[in-house]
Protein backbone atom coordinates (compact mmCIF):
# COMPACT_ATOMS: atom_id res chain seq x y z
CA UNK A 1 0.00 0.00 0.00
CA UNK A 2 1.14 3.47 -0.81
CA UNK A 3 0.22 7.01 0.15
CA UNK A 4 0.25 9.03 -3.02
CA UNK A 5 -0.86 12.19 -4.70
CA UNK A 6 -2.61 11.40 -7.95
CA UNK A 7 -3.87 13.60 -10.79
CA UNK A 8 -7.55 13.50 -11.62
CA UNK A 9 -8.23 12.59 -15.25
CA UNK A 10 -12.02 12.46 -15.09
CA UNK A 11 -14.76 12.68 -12.46
CA UNK A 12 -18.19 12.40 -14.00
CA UNK A 13 -21.68 11.21 -13.31
CA UNK A 14 -22.42 7.83 -14.95
CA UNK A 15 -25.83 6.98 -13.49
CA UNK A 16 -28.35 8.28 -10.98
CA UNK A 17 -26.25 9.47 -8.00
CA UNK A 18 -23.24 7.46 -9.22
CA UNK A 19 -19.92 9.04 -10.17
CA UNK A 20 -16.84 7.59 -11.77
CA UNK A 21 -13.46 9.01 -10.74
CA UNK A 22 -10.36 8.22 -12.77
CA UNK A 23 -6.95 9.39 -11.67
CA UNK A 24 -3.35 8.83 -12.71
CA UNK A 25 -0.76 7.76 -10.15
CA UNK A 26 2.89 8.64 -10.65
CA UNK A 27 3.68 5.03 -11.45
CA UNK A 28 1.73 1.84 -12.17
CA UNK A 29 -0.04 0.33 -9.17
CA UNK A 30 -0.82 -3.37 -8.93
CA UNK A 31 -4.38 -3.79 -7.66
CA UNK A 32 -6.29 -7.04 -7.16
CA UNK A 33 -10.03 -7.17 -7.79
CA UNK A 34 -11.85 -6.44 -4.51
CA UNK A 35 -9.16 -4.16 -3.13
CA UNK A 36 -10.03 -0.57 -2.32
CA UNK A 37 -8.59 2.92 -1.95
CA UNK A 38 -8.94 5.52 0.80
CA UNK A 39 -9.65 8.79 -0.97
CA UNK A 40 -8.94 12.11 0.70
CA UNK A 41 -11.56 14.84 0.34
CA UNK A 42 -10.31 18.35 0.98
CA UNK A 43 -11.68 19.65 4.27
CA UNK A 44 -12.80 16.27 5.63
CA UNK A 45 -10.68 14.52 8.26
CA UNK A 46 -11.77 11.02 7.25
CA UNK A 47 -11.00 9.57 3.88
CA UNK A 48 -13.63 7.68 1.93
CA UNK A 49 -13.07 3.96 1.36
CA UNK A 50 -13.99 3.20 -2.26
CA UNK A 51 -13.53 -0.07 -4.14
CA UNK A 52 -11.31 -0.06 -7.18
CA UNK A 53 -13.34 -0.67 -10.33
CA UNK A 54 -10.60 -0.54 -12.94
CA UNK A 55 -6.82 -0.58 -12.59
CA UNK A 56 -4.90 -0.06 -15.81
CA UNK A 57 -1.25 0.58 -15.00
CA UNK A 58 -1.10 3.98 -13.36
CA UNK A 59 -4.74 4.75 -14.23
CA UNK A 60 -7.23 3.85 -11.51
CA UNK A 61 -11.02 4.18 -11.69
CA UNK A 62 -13.27 4.20 -8.63
CA UNK A 63 -17.04 4.57 -8.67
CA UNK A 64 -18.97 6.01 -5.77
CA UNK A 65 -22.48 6.96 -4.78
CA UNK A 66 -23.37 10.45 -3.58
CA UNK A 67 -24.16 9.53 -0.03
CA UNK A 68 -23.35 12.48 2.16
CA UNK A 69 -21.41 15.73 2.31
CA UNK A 70 -18.06 14.07 1.70
CA UNK A 71 -18.99 12.29 -1.51
CA UNK A 72 -20.84 15.40 -2.74
CA UNK A 73 -17.67 17.38 -2.15
CA UNK A 74 -15.65 14.69 -3.92
CA UNK A 75 -17.96 15.02 -6.92
CA UNK A 76 -17.93 18.82 -7.04
CA UNK A 77 -14.39 19.68 -5.99
CA UNK A 78 -12.25 17.37 -8.13
CA UNK A 79 -12.09 17.88 -11.86
CA UNK A 80 -9.48 17.06 -14.47
CA UNK A 81 -5.99 18.17 -13.46
CA UNK A 82 -6.69 18.45 -9.72
CA UNK A 83 -4.43 16.66 -7.26
CA UNK A 84 -6.07 14.09 -5.01
CA UNK A 85 -4.66 12.23 -2.02
CA UNK A 86 -5.15 8.47 -2.08
CA UNK A 87 -3.93 5.47 -0.14
CA UNK A 88 -3.97 2.20 -2.09
CA UNK A 89 -4.22 -0.68 -2.73
CA UNK A 90 -5.90 -1.76 0.51
CA UNK A 91 -7.48 -4.97 1.79
CA UNK A 92 -7.19 -8.57 0.64
CA UNK A 93 -9.30 -8.64 -2.52
CA UNK A 94 -11.01 -11.63 -4.13
CA UNK A 95 -9.13 -14.79 -4.85
CA UNK A 96 -10.21 -17.52 -7.22
CA UNK A 97 -8.25 -20.76 -7.39
CA UNK A 98 -6.95 -22.46 -10.52
CA UNK A 99 -9.62 -25.19 -10.33
CA UNK A 100 -12.53 -22.77 -9.97
CA UNK A 101 -13.35 -22.34 -13.65
CA UNK A 102 -16.97 -21.18 -13.48
CA UNK A 103 -17.31 -18.00 -11.44
CA UNK A 104 -20.63 -16.37 -10.55
CA UNK A 105 -20.57 -12.72 -9.50
CA UNK A 106 -23.62 -11.37 -7.69
CA UNK A 107 -23.81 -7.65 -7.04
CA UNK A 108 -26.15 -4.89 -6.05
CA UNK A 109 -25.88 -1.13 -5.60
CA UNK A 110 -22.30 0.17 -5.51
CA UNK A 111 -21.30 -3.44 -4.87
CA UNK A 112 -21.25 -3.99 -8.62
CA UNK A 113 -18.04 -1.95 -9.00
CA UNK A 114 -15.54 -4.26 -7.23
CA UNK A 115 -17.23 -7.10 -9.13
CA UNK A 116 -16.52 -5.31 -12.40
CA UNK A 117 -12.88 -5.41 -11.30
CA UNK A 118 -13.28 -9.17 -10.80
CA UNK A 119 -14.90 -9.61 -14.22
CA UNK A 120 -12.03 -7.68 -15.78
CA UNK A 121 -9.42 -9.72 -13.91
CA UNK A 122 -10.91 -13.15 -14.68
CA UNK A 123 -12.69 -12.63 -18.02
CA UNK A 124 -9.87 -14.28 -19.98
CA UNK A 125 -9.18 -17.24 -17.73
CA UNK A 126 -12.64 -18.10 -16.34
CA UNK A 127 -16.27 -18.49 -17.38
CA UNK A 128 -18.00 -15.61 -15.67
CA UNK A 129 -21.73 -15.46 -15.00
CA UNK A 130 -22.73 -12.04 -13.73
CA UNK A 131 -25.96 -11.15 -11.89
CA UNK A 132 -26.16 -7.44 -11.27
CA UNK A 133 -29.02 -5.77 -9.46
CA UNK A 134 -30.20 -2.17 -9.84
CA UNK A 135 -33.14 -0.16 -8.56
CA UNK A 136 -34.26 0.69 -12.06
CA UNK A 137 -33.19 1.75 -15.53
CA UNK A 138 -31.63 5.07 -14.41
CA UNK A 139 -29.24 3.29 -12.06
CA UNK A 140 -27.67 1.04 -14.70
CA UNK A 141 -24.14 1.87 -15.78
CA UNK A 142 -20.97 0.27 -17.16
CA UNK A 143 -22.93 -2.38 -18.99
CA UNK A 144 -20.06 -2.89 -21.45
CA UNK A 145 -17.78 -3.79 -18.54
CA UNK A 146 -20.28 -6.23 -17.04
CA UNK A 147 -20.64 -7.91 -20.44
CA UNK A 148 -17.00 -8.98 -20.59
CA UNK A 149 -17.91 -12.33 -18.98
CA UNK A 150 -19.74 -15.30 -20.51
CA UNK A 151 -23.22 -14.27 -19.41
CA UNK A 152 -24.81 -11.21 -17.86
CA UNK A 153 -28.21 -10.93 -16.21
CA UNK A 154 -29.32 -7.47 -15.21
CA UNK A 155 -32.00 -7.46 -12.54
CA UNK A 156 -34.09 -4.43 -11.65
CA UNK A 157 -36.41 -3.99 -8.71
CA UNK A 158 -39.08 -2.44 -10.96
CA UNK A 159 -38.53 -4.73 -13.94
CA UNK A 160 -37.75 -1.75 -16.20
CA UNK A 161 -34.76 -3.66 -17.61
CA UNK A 162 -33.98 -7.37 -17.59
CA UNK A 163 -35.06 -9.68 -14.81
CA UNK A 164 -37.70 -8.31 -12.44
CA UNK A 165 -36.42 -8.98 -8.95
CA UNK A 166 -33.11 -9.07 -7.13
CA UNK A 167 -29.73 -10.20 -8.36
CA UNK A 168 -29.83 -13.03 -5.80
CA UNK A 169 -33.19 -14.25 -7.14
CA UNK A 170 -31.86 -14.11 -10.70
CA UNK A 171 -28.77 -16.03 -9.69
CA UNK A 172 -30.72 -18.71 -7.82
CA UNK A 173 -32.88 -19.35 -10.87
CA UNK A 174 -29.71 -20.08 -12.86
CA UNK A 175 -27.57 -21.80 -10.28
CA UNK A 176 -28.36 -25.40 -11.22
CA UNK A 177 -27.76 -24.73 -14.90
CA UNK A 178 -24.58 -22.71 -14.43
CA UNK A 179 -23.13 -24.85 -11.61
CA UNK A 180 -20.59 -22.26 -10.49
CA UNK A 181 -17.44 -23.39 -8.66
CA UNK A 182 -17.29 -20.16 -6.67
CA UNK A 183 -19.44 -17.10 -6.04
CA UNK A 184 -18.14 -13.57 -5.50
CA UNK A 185 -20.64 -11.10 -4.08
CA UNK A 186 -20.84 -7.50 -2.99
CA UNK A 187 -23.83 -5.38 -2.13
CA UNK A 188 -26.08 -4.18 0.68
CA UNK A 189 -26.16 -6.39 3.79
CA UNK A 190 -29.78 -7.58 3.20
CA UNK A 191 -28.67 -8.81 -0.23
CA UNK A 192 -25.72 -10.69 1.25
CA UNK A 193 -27.98 -12.22 3.90
CA UNK A 194 -30.40 -13.38 1.20
CA UNK A 195 -27.49 -14.93 -0.69
CA UNK A 196 -26.27 -16.64 2.45
CA UNK A 197 -29.60 -18.29 3.19
CA UNK A 198 -30.23 -19.13 -0.48
CA UNK A 199 -26.89 -20.91 -0.85
CA UNK A 200 -26.86 -22.53 2.60
CA UNK A 201 -26.45 -26.29 2.43
CA UNK A 202 -24.81 -26.25 -1.00
CA UNK A 203 -21.19 -27.25 -1.27
CA UNK A 204 -20.29 -23.94 -2.85
CA UNK A 205 -17.69 -21.42 -1.72
CA UNK A 206 -19.19 -17.93 -1.53
CA UNK A 207 -17.04 -14.86 -0.88
CA UNK A 208 -18.55 -11.54 0.13
CA UNK A 209 -16.98 -8.10 0.19
CA UNK A 210 -18.15 -6.04 3.18
CA UNK A 211 -18.55 -2.34 3.75
CA UNK A 212 -18.06 -0.52 7.06
CA UNK A 213 -17.27 2.99 8.29
CA UNK A 214 -13.48 3.19 8.47
CA UNK A 215 -10.85 5.23 10.26
CA UNK A 216 -7.32 4.53 9.05
CA UNK A 217 -8.11 1.99 6.29
CA UNK A 218 -4.91 0.04 7.00
CA UNK A 219 -5.82 -2.07 10.03
CA UNK A 220 -4.42 0.08 12.83
CA UNK A 221 -7.40 1.76 14.46
CA UNK A 222 -9.89 -1.13 14.89
CA UNK A 223 -12.84 1.01 13.87
CA UNK A 224 -14.26 -1.11 11.03
CA UNK A 225 -14.65 -4.49 12.67
CA UNK A 226 -17.12 -7.22 11.77
CA UNK A 227 -18.17 -10.16 13.94
CA UNK A 228 -16.64 -13.53 13.20
CA UNK A 229 -18.93 -16.52 13.41
CA UNK A 230 -16.82 -18.29 16.00
CA UNK A 231 -16.63 -15.13 18.14
CA UNK A 232 -14.21 -12.23 18.03
CA UNK A 233 -13.71 -9.57 15.43
CA UNK A 234 -11.99 -9.15 12.10
CA UNK A 235 -10.89 -5.84 10.58
CA UNK A 236 -12.89 -5.18 7.42
CA UNK A 237 -10.11 -2.97 5.99
CA UNK A 238 -7.17 -5.30 6.60
CA UNK A 239 -8.44 -8.85 7.14
CA UNK A 240 -11.15 -8.17 4.52
CA UNK A 241 -13.03 -6.61 2.90
CA UNK A 242 -13.51 -10.08 1.34
CA UNK A 243 -14.56 -12.91 3.65
CA UNK A 244 -15.97 -16.38 3.20
CA UNK A 245 -19.71 -15.99 3.71
CA UNK A 246 -19.62 -18.54 6.53
CA UNK A 247 -16.78 -16.80 8.38
CA UNK A 248 -18.69 -13.64 9.30
CA UNK A 249 -21.96 -12.65 10.91
CA UNK A 250 -23.97 -10.58 8.47
Amino acid sequence: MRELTATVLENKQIAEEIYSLTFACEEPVKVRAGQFAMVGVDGFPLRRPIAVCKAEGERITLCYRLKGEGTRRLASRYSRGEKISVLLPLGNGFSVTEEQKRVAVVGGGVGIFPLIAAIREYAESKEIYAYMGFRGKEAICMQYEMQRGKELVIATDDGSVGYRGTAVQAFMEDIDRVKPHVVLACGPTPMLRALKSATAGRDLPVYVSLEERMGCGVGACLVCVCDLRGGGHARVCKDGPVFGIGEVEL
Partner: protein
Amino acid sequence: MTDLRVNLCGVELKNPVIPASGTFGFGREFDEIYDISLLGAVATKGLTLEPRLGNPVPRIAESRGVILNAVGLQNPGVEHFLEHDLAWLRSKTRVIANVAGRDMEDYAGICARLDGLVDFLELNISCPNVKCGGMALGVKPENVENVTRIAKAALKATPLIVKLSPNVENIAENARAAEAGGADCLSLVNTFTGMAIDIEKRRPVLANNTGGVSGAGIKPIAVRMVYEVAHAVRLPVVGMGGIVCAEDAIEFLMAGATAVQVGTQNFTDALACPKIIEGLDKWCASHGVARISELVGVAQMNG
Protein backbone atom coordinates in the same frame (compact mmCIF):
# COMPACT_ATOMS: atom_id res chain seq x y z
CA MET B 1 19.85 20.26 10.33
CA THR B 2 18.03 21.17 13.50
CA ASP B 3 18.68 19.16 16.63
CA LEU B 4 15.21 17.64 17.02
CA ARG B 5 16.08 15.45 20.01
CA VAL B 6 14.08 15.90 23.18
CA ASN B 7 14.53 14.44 26.62
CA LEU B 8 11.43 13.07 28.28
CA CYS B 9 11.91 11.85 31.86
CA GLY B 10 15.57 11.06 31.15
CA VAL B 11 14.75 9.13 27.97
CA GLU B 12 15.99 10.63 24.73
CA LEU B 13 13.60 10.72 21.76
CA LYS B 14 15.12 11.40 18.33
CA ASN B 15 12.36 13.94 17.74
CA PRO B 16 9.23 15.06 19.57
CA VAL B 17 6.67 13.46 17.22
CA ILE B 18 4.68 10.48 18.50
CA PRO B 19 1.62 8.88 16.90
CA ALA B 20 -1.17 8.92 19.48
CA SER B 21 -2.63 5.86 21.09
CA GLY B 22 -5.47 4.20 19.19
CA THR B 23 -4.61 5.66 15.80
CA PHE B 24 -1.53 3.59 15.08
CA GLY B 25 -2.10 0.06 16.38
CA PHE B 26 1.30 -1.31 17.38
CA GLY B 27 2.94 0.29 14.37
CA ARG B 28 3.05 -2.65 11.97
CA GLU B 29 0.47 -1.40 9.48
CA PHE B 30 2.01 2.06 9.15
CA ASP B 31 5.46 0.47 8.85
CA GLU B 32 4.23 -0.96 5.54
CA ILE B 33 3.84 2.65 4.36
CA TYR B 34 6.97 4.22 5.86
CA ASP B 35 9.80 3.21 8.16
CA ILE B 36 8.40 4.00 11.60
CA SER B 37 11.90 4.06 13.10
CA LEU B 38 11.97 7.73 12.12
CA LEU B 39 9.36 8.51 14.81
CA GLY B 40 10.30 9.87 18.22
CA ALA B 41 8.23 7.13 19.83
CA VAL B 42 5.01 5.19 19.29
CA ALA B 43 2.09 5.27 21.74
CA THR B 44 0.46 1.86 21.45
CA LYS B 45 -3.19 1.00 21.16
CA GLY B 46 -4.66 0.99 24.68
CA LEU B 47 -3.81 -2.29 26.40
CA THR B 48 -5.68 -4.15 29.11
CA LEU B 49 -4.74 -7.25 31.10
CA GLU B 50 -7.33 -9.36 29.27
CA PRO B 51 -8.29 -9.13 25.60
CA ARG B 52 -11.27 -6.86 24.94
CA LEU B 53 -13.80 -6.93 22.12
CA GLY B 54 -14.77 -3.27 22.28
CA ASN B 55 -18.02 -1.64 21.21
CA PRO B 56 -20.46 -2.47 18.40
CA VAL B 57 -20.13 -0.67 15.05
CA PRO B 58 -20.40 2.04 13.80
CA ARG B 59 -17.46 3.12 15.90
CA ILE B 60 -16.60 6.28 14.00
CA ALA B 61 -18.37 9.40 12.78
CA GLU B 62 -17.34 12.69 11.26
CA SER B 63 -18.37 16.24 11.92
CA ARG B 64 -16.93 19.49 10.57
CA GLY B 65 -13.20 19.50 11.29
CA VAL B 66 -13.43 16.64 13.76
CA ILE B 67 -14.17 12.95 14.13
CA LEU B 68 -15.85 11.00 16.92
CA ASN B 69 -14.76 7.51 17.89
CA ALA B 70 -16.06 4.87 20.25
CA VAL B 71 -13.85 1.84 19.73
CA GLY B 72 -14.14 0.88 23.37
CA LEU B 73 -10.60 -0.34 23.98
CA GLN B 74 -10.68 -3.36 21.69
CA ASN B 75 -7.23 -4.92 22.09
CA PRO B 76 -5.64 -8.37 22.13
CA GLY B 77 -4.51 -8.09 25.75
CA VAL B 78 -1.10 -7.29 27.21
CA GLU B 79 0.28 -10.83 26.93
CA HIS B 80 -0.39 -10.92 23.20
CA PHE B 81 1.37 -7.57 22.85
CA LEU B 82 4.38 -8.79 24.81
CA GLU B 83 4.64 -11.95 22.77
CA HIS B 84 3.98 -10.59 19.28
CA ASP B 85 4.68 -6.89 19.05
CA LEU B 86 6.94 -5.47 21.74
CA ALA B 87 10.33 -6.77 20.59
CA TRP B 88 9.67 -5.69 17.02
CA LEU B 89 8.37 -2.26 18.05
CA ARG B 90 11.31 -1.65 20.41
CA SER B 91 13.71 -2.50 17.60
CA LYS B 92 12.14 0.41 15.71
CA THR B 93 11.75 3.20 18.24
CA ARG B 94 10.80 4.16 21.79
CA VAL B 95 7.64 2.50 23.05
CA ILE B 96 4.93 4.18 25.10
CA ALA B 97 2.57 1.45 26.29
CA ASN B 98 -0.87 2.96 26.73
CA VAL B 99 -2.74 1.02 29.41
CA ALA B 100 -6.23 0.96 30.84
CA GLY B 101 -8.14 -0.99 33.44
CA ARG B 102 -11.53 -1.55 34.97
CA ASP B 103 -10.42 -0.84 38.51
CA MET B 104 -7.37 0.05 40.59
CA GLU B 105 -6.23 -3.59 40.73
CA ASP B 106 -6.18 -3.79 36.93
CA TYR B 107 -4.03 -0.66 36.69
CA ALA B 108 -1.56 -2.00 39.26
CA GLY B 109 -1.45 -5.37 37.49
CA ILE B 110 -0.80 -4.09 34.01
CA CYS B 111 1.82 -1.59 35.20
CA ALA B 112 3.67 -4.32 37.09
CA ARG B 113 3.54 -6.57 34.01
CA LEU B 114 5.06 -3.93 31.72
CA ASP B 115 7.56 -2.43 34.18
CA GLY B 116 11.05 -2.44 32.72
CA LEU B 117 9.86 -3.78 29.36
CA VAL B 118 8.79 -0.54 27.68
CA ASP B 119 10.20 2.99 27.60
CA PHE B 120 7.11 4.63 29.12
CA LEU B 121 3.75 3.70 30.54
CA GLU B 122 0.90 6.00 29.56
CA LEU B 123 -2.03 5.65 31.92
CA ASN B 124 -5.36 6.01 30.17
CA ILE B 125 -7.65 7.19 32.94
CA SER B 126 -9.85 9.14 30.62
CA CYS B 127 -11.16 6.86 27.91
CA PRO B 128 -14.74 8.09 27.60
CA ASN B 129 -15.91 4.90 25.93
CA VAL B 130 -15.51 2.47 28.78
CA LYS B 131 -18.26 2.59 31.30
CA CYS B 132 -16.61 1.11 34.36
CA GLY B 133 -13.35 2.75 35.40
CA GLY B 134 -12.25 4.95 32.52
CA MET B 135 -14.04 8.21 32.81
CA ALA B 136 -14.95 7.95 36.46
CA LEU B 137 -11.28 7.56 37.39
CA GLY B 138 -10.10 10.48 35.33
CA VAL B 139 -12.61 13.07 36.42
CA LYS B 140 -12.25 13.64 40.15
CA PRO B 141 -8.83 14.89 41.32
CA GLU B 142 -8.76 12.48 44.28
CA ASN B 143 -9.30 9.52 41.91
CA VAL B 144 -6.59 10.80 39.58
CA GLU B 145 -4.18 10.99 42.50
CA ASN B 146 -5.13 7.52 43.75
CA VAL B 147 -4.81 5.70 40.47
CA THR B 148 -1.53 7.47 39.75
CA ARG B 149 -0.15 6.44 43.16
CA ILE B 150 -1.20 2.82 42.64
CA ALA B 151 0.32 2.70 39.14
CA LYS B 152 3.52 4.36 40.31
CA ALA B 153 3.88 1.90 43.18
CA ALA B 154 3.84 -0.94 40.64
CA LEU B 155 6.62 0.63 38.58
CA LYS B 156 10.30 0.42 39.52
CA ALA B 157 12.03 1.13 36.22
CA THR B 158 9.61 2.70 33.75
CA PRO B 159 8.55 6.34 33.83
CA LEU B 160 4.83 6.96 34.23
CA ILE B 161 2.86 9.31 31.98
CA VAL B 162 -0.68 10.11 33.10
CA LYS B 163 -3.00 10.98 30.20
CA LEU B 164 -5.50 13.58 31.32
CA SER B 165 -9.12 13.87 30.29
CA PRO B 166 -10.32 17.28 29.10
CA ASN B 167 -13.86 16.48 30.25
CA VAL B 168 -13.23 17.89 33.70
CA GLU B 169 -13.95 20.98 35.73
CA ASN B 170 -10.37 22.13 36.10
CA ILE B 171 -7.64 20.32 34.21
CA ALA B 172 -4.82 22.08 36.07
CA GLU B 173 -6.19 20.73 39.34
CA ASN B 174 -6.21 17.18 37.93
CA ALA B 175 -2.66 17.73 36.69
CA ARG B 176 -1.57 18.69 40.21
CA ALA B 177 -3.36 15.62 41.54
CA ALA B 178 -1.40 13.37 39.15
CA GLU B 179 1.81 15.12 40.19
CA ALA B 180 0.97 14.55 43.84
CA GLY B 181 0.32 10.87 43.06
CA GLY B 182 3.83 10.51 41.65
CA ALA B 183 3.44 10.91 37.89
CA ASP B 184 6.67 11.48 35.98
CA CYS B 185 4.99 13.16 33.02
CA LEU B 186 1.52 14.22 31.85
CA SER B 187 -0.05 13.88 28.42
CA LEU B 188 -3.11 15.75 27.23
CA VAL B 189 -5.67 16.05 25.88
CA ASN B 190 -7.60 12.85 25.46
CA THR B 191 -10.80 13.22 23.43
CA PHE B 192 -13.78 15.38 24.32
CA THR B 193 -17.06 13.51 24.80
CA GLY B 194 -19.45 14.29 21.96
CA MET B 195 -22.41 13.08 19.94
CA ALA B 196 -23.39 13.18 16.27
CA ILE B 197 -26.97 12.50 15.20
CA ASP B 198 -28.05 11.00 11.90
CA ILE B 199 -31.05 13.22 11.20
CA GLU B 200 -32.58 10.78 8.70
CA LYS B 201 -32.54 7.96 11.22
CA ARG B 202 -33.15 10.30 14.17
CA ARG B 203 -30.55 8.52 16.27
CA PRO B 204 -26.85 8.87 17.02
CA VAL B 205 -24.41 7.78 14.32
CA LEU B 206 -22.26 5.88 16.81
CA ALA B 207 -23.61 2.59 18.13
CA ASN B 208 -22.27 3.73 21.51
CA ASN B 209 -24.30 6.99 21.14
CA THR B 210 -21.42 9.14 22.41
CA GLY B 211 -17.78 9.11 21.40
CA GLY B 212 -14.51 10.94 21.80
CA VAL B 213 -14.09 14.04 19.64
CA SER B 214 -10.68 14.63 18.08
CA GLY B 215 -9.16 16.36 15.09
CA ALA B 216 -8.24 19.85 13.93
CA GLY B 217 -11.34 21.48 15.45
CA ILE B 218 -10.27 20.80 19.05
CA LYS B 219 -6.79 22.28 18.74
CA PRO B 220 -7.30 25.70 20.35
CA ILE B 221 -8.92 24.11 23.39
CA ALA B 222 -6.10 21.59 23.64
CA VAL B 223 -3.41 24.29 23.34
CA ARG B 224 -5.06 26.30 26.12
CA MET B 225 -5.22 23.23 28.36
CA VAL B 226 -1.59 22.29 27.68
CA TYR B 227 -0.59 25.83 28.57
CA GLU B 228 -2.55 25.71 31.83
CA VAL B 229 -1.17 22.31 32.82
CA ALA B 230 2.42 23.06 31.86
CA HIS B 231 2.29 26.11 34.08
CA ALA B 232 0.57 24.31 36.97
CA VAL B 233 3.08 21.47 37.48
CA ARG B 234 6.82 20.90 37.34
CA LEU B 235 6.43 17.77 35.22
CA PRO B 236 7.15 17.53 31.51
CA VAL B 237 4.05 17.54 29.31
CA VAL B 238 3.22 15.73 26.06
CA GLY B 239 0.69 17.81 24.12
CA MET B 240 -1.89 16.66 21.63
CA GLY B 241 -5.23 17.57 20.15
CA GLY B 242 -5.83 18.39 16.49
CA ILE B 243 -2.23 18.56 15.28
CA VAL B 244 -2.24 18.52 11.48
CA CYS B 245 1.13 20.07 10.54
CA ALA B 246 4.48 21.13 11.95
CA GLU B 247 3.22 24.63 12.77
CA ASP B 248 0.48 23.12 14.94
CA ALA B 249 3.08 21.04 16.76
CA ILE B 250 5.17 24.16 17.39
CA GLU B 251 2.15 25.84 19.01
CA PHE B 252 1.98 22.98 21.49
CA LEU B 253 5.72 23.18 22.19
CA MET B 254 5.48 26.93 22.78
CA ALA B 255 2.51 26.35 25.09
CA GLY B 256 4.78 24.16 27.21
CA ALA B 257 4.82 20.65 25.72
CA THR B 258 8.15 18.81 25.47
CA ALA B 259 6.80 16.42 22.84
CA VAL B 260 3.58 16.03 20.86
CA GLN B 261 1.26 13.27 19.76
CA VAL B 262 -0.51 13.13 16.42
CA GLY B 263 -3.75 11.16 16.20
CA THR B 264 -6.58 11.89 13.79
CA GLN B 265 -4.27 13.28 11.12
CA ASN B 266 -2.82 9.78 10.63
CA PHE B 267 -6.23 8.92 9.13
CA THR B 268 -6.32 11.99 6.89
CA ASP B 269 -2.76 11.47 5.68
CA ALA B 270 -0.87 8.26 6.42
CA LEU B 271 2.39 10.21 6.09
CA ALA B 272 1.31 12.87 8.61
CA CYS B 273 4.03 12.09 11.18
CA PRO B 274 7.01 12.02 8.79
CA LYS B 275 5.74 15.23 7.16
CA ILE B 276 5.48 16.93 10.56
CA ILE B 277 9.02 15.84 11.51
CA GLU B 278 10.34 17.23 8.23
CA GLY B 279 8.30 20.39 8.71
CA LEU B 280 9.71 20.93 12.21
CA ASP B 281 13.24 20.73 10.85
CA LYS B 282 12.45 23.26 8.11
CA TRP B 283 10.61 25.66 10.40
CA CYS B 284 13.43 25.65 12.93
CA ALA B 285 16.05 26.12 10.22
CA SER B 286 14.20 29.09 8.75
CA HIS B 287 13.69 30.67 12.20
CA GLY B 288 17.23 30.26 13.47
CA VAL B 289 16.28 27.64 16.05
CA ALA B 290 19.22 25.26 16.52
CA ARG B 291 17.59 22.93 19.04
CA ILE B 292 13.86 22.27 19.06
CA SER B 293 13.84 21.97 22.84
CA GLU B 294 14.53 25.73 22.95
CA LEU B 295 10.91 26.28 21.93
CA VAL B 296 9.35 24.53 24.90
CA GLY B 297 7.18 26.95 26.84
CA VAL B 298 8.45 30.11 25.15
CA ALA B 299 5.00 31.58 24.46
CA GLN B 300 4.70 34.84 26.40
CA MET B 301 1.21 35.82 27.47
CA ASN B 302 -0.03 39.25 26.48
CA GLY B 303 -0.01 41.82 29.30
